[in-house]
């Protein structure tokens, strides 16, 4: 019987060193969408809570923030299509096996809610006086609550979107990415909120931001030693740089949020840092995925190991 090699072999065979998988067809716009989608979700939840606890400025900022970021993310989603004019084809099917299909319907559910709540906040006063305006205003709370109810789906499904592929860095990280993304959604939503409201209303935003940042960083750190060889895609090269900066900004922003007291300037800076950190986190994960498709070792080595272990176990 052959002795099993526990350490991944440094050498492996390939076809002229060429990649086996295709580099993802998506570009930076998808990473941008991930960020904006999470920001929107976090803002929507913050806005609903603000609505229910009587914090009107926070409510307004969050609802508008949710609207603007969801519009931005929809733009990026459509623009990254090979045939943007056919975006509506996504509505032909609802496939549980496709996170993108599920995401289409999650966004379809969330969007109108966030949209209505945001529009309600943005309505000019003269419009509020007619019957449409009053209707919209009346619907704003249920819409906002509905958005908040569906927001966790928006924030977390994107992790499944990435993981449900053959991309090694994304697929292997599937237990962790949802926590990274939801943490990041909370951090960015809270960061935006605390930037734009008076200190008096900023409390929930600050608490959400710090908790989100902690979850984001903890999950991000936790996954590195547990991914085997594919961790290298996260810890080397461009992906590594992006994630390092993300962590610095997110932690820095969180610290600033905690110790900022009532200094508006510190809170604004911290909010910006959290937003930037959240964005860089998404870009970092995206880059790691791309990198993991471009070197065949990420496919060959783990799969070859698995086969060897299986054939040993079968003796």
């Amino acid at each position, binding site marked *: 019987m052959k002795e099993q090699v526990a350490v991944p072999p440094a050498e492996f065979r390939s076809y002229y060193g060429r990649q086996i998988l295709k580099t993802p067809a998506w570009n930076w716009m998808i990473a941008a969408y991930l960020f904006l989608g999470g920001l929107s979700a976090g803002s929507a*939840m913050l806005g609903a809570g603000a609505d229910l606890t009587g914090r009107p400025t926070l409510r307004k900022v969050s609802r508008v923030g949710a609207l603007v970021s969801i519009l931005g993310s929809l733009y990026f989603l459509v623009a990254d299509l*090979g045939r943007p004019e056919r975006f509506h084809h996504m509505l032909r099917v609802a496939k549980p096996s496709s996170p993108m299909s599920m995401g289409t319907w999650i966004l379809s559910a969330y969007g109108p809610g966030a949209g209505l709540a945001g529009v309600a906040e943005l309505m000019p006063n003269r419009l509020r006086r007619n019957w449409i305006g009053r209707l919209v205003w009346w619907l704003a709370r249920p819409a906002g609550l509905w958005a908040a109810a569906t927001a966790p789906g928006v924030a977390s499904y994107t992790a499944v979107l990435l993981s449900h592929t053959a991309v090694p860095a994304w697929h292997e990280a599937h237990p962790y990415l949802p926590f990274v993304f939801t943490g990041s959604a909370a951090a960015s939503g809270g960061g935006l909120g605390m930037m734009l409201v008076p200190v008096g209303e900023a409390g929930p935003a600050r608490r959400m931001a710090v908790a989100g940042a902690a979850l984001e960083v903890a999950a991000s750190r936790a996954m590195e030693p547990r991914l085997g060889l594919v961790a290298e895609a996260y810890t080397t090269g461009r992906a590594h740089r992006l994630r390092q900066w993300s962590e610095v900004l997110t932690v820095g922003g969180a610290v600033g949020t905690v110790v900022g007291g009532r200094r508006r300037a510190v809170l604004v800076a911290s909010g910006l840092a959290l937003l930037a950190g959240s964005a860089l986190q998404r870009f970092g994960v995206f880059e790691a995925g791309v990198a993991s498709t471009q070197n065949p070792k990420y496919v060959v080595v783990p799969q070859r190991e698995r086969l060897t272990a299986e*054939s040993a176990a079968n003796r």
Partner: protein
Amino acid sequence: MSGNSFYGPLADPAGDAGYDERHPPRVGFFTDTSVCIGCKACEVACKEWNEVPDDGFDLLGMSFDNTGELGANSWRHVAFVEQPGGRSGVGEDLKAPVDLGMPELKQAVADVVGERPDFRWLMSSDVCKHCTHAGCLDVCPTGALFRTEFSTVVVQQDICNGCGYCVSACPYGVIERREGDGRAWKCTMCYDRLHDGLEPACAKACPTDSIQFGPLDELRERAALRVEQLHERGVTEARLYGHDPNDGVGGDGAFFLLLDEPEVYGLPPDPVVPTRDAGAMWRYAGLAASALVGIAVSAFVGRR
């Protein structure tokens, strides 16, 4: 849907996809690379029949392979690997040297360099695997990709909006978006020819019958016999790839007889359809979503 719709052996993918019992038997390719002469008639026949655009005129220097890989504009790809000798055994040698398929330069040596019986030139025509559990098909959000009545996987070009998700979901790196066109393209197993009872263009053109087409279970039987025959003749490195319904994609509709490990040909050793872990992924997402709810709620509890 049956319990094995996403993963594991599935005898009738077309039935599972909703066709009634009158659908034709599953068909596929058995590519016996031990008789491939590397003529590339398959590449040309495919392009002629399917009007696939050319893929660029680049001398790649990878032996006689100037196609490089499967993609939107290459639906058959003949791989060439020159092996100077010392080939690996049947799949168990972890310490095999890095083989980039190219020999290294050596010092000029005035040795008698005569016949080398262990020199091999492997040739193999790669194609879309038409997996039993196809990652591309599973993730397609528009329904453009569908399972045909022949159990093959085809992209409907009037529906595809180029979202590119299938590109990342394929564990073999086959399907790709076509530049300038935006949509995803891949081998259709000549769906139009199948409708008229003809075999795909590549199988028709292959002069040595390296590419064999027919009902999949017949091909699997034939392949098993062929491997046995080769083993009896001392070709012990012959092995099948993609034939096993218990593998990570439920077995391929296009499977191969290889003379070395799959990665030598640019194939993944143990591909798994991403959908296998779908359940786990959504569970983790649910947990993370709950955590987010928890964070949001706790942010408002308390007074400040």
